[in-house]
């Protein structure tokens, strides 16, 4: 009997959408910034075959997809969901390891970012019951996941952009960006809960 694969789409904004799958996709995280970079990774190849897809980030059971153009997620999301299902159903490895050259540079960045997380970022957010997990650095992009009091917190984006990202850009100026792959809707104990109309 075919197994049921559940996929939930969570648009972040007009350009980005997270797809949460009921099955793990990758142990770790991998980012693809172009169709060329996706070659050899069947899931990413399938997603880049969809018109307008410009970036794919696979992390654990989450795929974060960035698109250009005006096609609503309501339409693109169905194509993305179908591509993920097909890739999972194939049983093949979904994502290839990162290439060695880039990986070496990212590895060095990872170490510096991890040091900053340990020395400053996590001690700071711990004061509000939160933590930030460094998932990976790929092509200079830092991928992280927030938890505890940060997960689902109404001010999580402020903490990320005005605190964490600024600290990273000062201490590790080589980074190309910061991507949050947190499923904030699953946060059960956010530090601040939105309440105003």
């Amino acid at each position, binding site marked *: 009997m075919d197994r049921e694969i559940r996929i939930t789409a969570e648009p972040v904004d*007009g350009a980005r959408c997270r797809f949460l799958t009921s099955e793990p996709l990758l142990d770790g995280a991998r980012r693809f910034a172009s169709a060329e970079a996706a070659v050899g990774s069947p899931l990413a190849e399938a997603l880049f075959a969809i018109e307008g897809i410009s970036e794919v980030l696979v992390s654990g059971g989450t795929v974060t997809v960035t698109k250009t153009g005006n096609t609503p997620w309501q339409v693109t999301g169905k194509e993305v969901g179908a591509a993920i299902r097909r890739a999972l159903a194939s049983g093949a490895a979904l994502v290839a390891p990162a290439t060695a050259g880039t990986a070496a540079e990212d590895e060095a960045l990872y170490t510096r970012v991890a040091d900053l997380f340990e020395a400053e970022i996590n001690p700071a957010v711990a004061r509000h019951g939160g933590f930030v997990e460094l998932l990976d650095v790929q092509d200079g992009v830092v991928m992280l996941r927030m938890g505890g009091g940060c997960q689902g917190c109404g001010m999580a984006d402020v903490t990320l952009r005005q605190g964490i990202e600024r600290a990273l850009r000062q201490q590790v100026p080589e980074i190309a960006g910061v991507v949050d792959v947190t499923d904030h809707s699953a946060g059960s104990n956010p530090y601040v809960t*939105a309440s105003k109309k």
Partner: protein
Amino acid sequence: MGPGPRLLLLLPSTTYRAAAFVEAARRLDVELTVVSDHRSVFATREPASLATFDFSNPDRAAEQAAAFAARHPVAAVAGVDDDTVVLAAAIARALGLRHNPVEAARAARSKHRQRVLLRDAGCPVPAFRLHRLDQDPRAFAANVPYPVVVKPLCLAASRGVIRADGPADLVAAHAILREILAAPDVATQGEDARHYLIEQYVPGPEFALEGVLDGGRLRVLALFDKPDPLDGPYFEETIYVTPSRLDGAAQRELAECAERAALALGLVTGPVHVELRRNAGGPWLIELGARSIGGRCGAVLRFGAGAAEMSLEELLLRHALGLPVPTWERASGAAGVMMIPVPAAGVLRAVKGVDAARAVPGVDDVVVTAHPGQTLVPPPRGAQYPGFIFARGASPAGVESALRAAHRCLTFDVSSGGD
């Protein structure tokens, strides 16, 4: 090239809108300082990017802003909700920035002052009377011209707003209001928590107008129909759909009423969110806020097309900063949002059917903002929606149908016990 202009963005820690405004500011390449009422854990590390002001005292906040601006020059200040209306005006005055006069902001923020000014300016507002909360309503209940609406002065999201059709209703509504206004989060509101309004109930469909005042002229960004009747006894908001299905003349009438009211309060710039009713007597102004649409509802409004499409928040920040606004035209088609009604009082355990709701044709997104373990409080005592549904389509009727169909897919597992 030097850094862009610095924007002070006033974000109460309980706002739903932090991400939308922060992302909009990032798109504009401005130097952003987020100012909040609660200190960020990174405030010491990033003093130019994260500041903490006293949101309960606009004069004190203005002093804090002046001290901040002496170190980091500020080009504009923007608030995001009712709580920041007066603060933003006071800070702008202290820094010599373009904004609404403080007195106009205070009038917009005070339900009573607003009504007095609008009535005196000849704007069509329901008859009203201010009462002290400690006055026994049985002393005057027999003389009230029913039906009426009991309204607190200091709450949002229809919290504490109750219709009364007779003396017994009024006494009961007063008792509920006393209980709400004694809550710790409200009692700090001072005199506003010790008074309330009794206002004539105005029958008829309700509308919400979203606009921007630009040099004293109202630009209408969207007029929303509220297809669910708001007849009471409580006034929980549910569906907003734009464009309105009213004819053009009726829409202009509502817009003229809103503009006249804004100018009567002395507002000249920035967002306005206006609640109006309309019946055989014409338009009635129910509430006017010097802020944009609340909650997550702003996501329903997009402007322009193609690569230049922008969010409501980006449009508002562009206006606040004096940057060019490429277009004031809403993206084509109909759009709507449902503020998901609180299904029951109790502790939320789970929400089921979200995938099915998202799969409804026309539905853009379903956002559950309540978290498992959160206590849900229905109206009139509560002020938090468990989530929002967004839809787009060719027609307002189609959008409304999609919102209702998606809502029917959702099941809320709420336990009433305090386990």
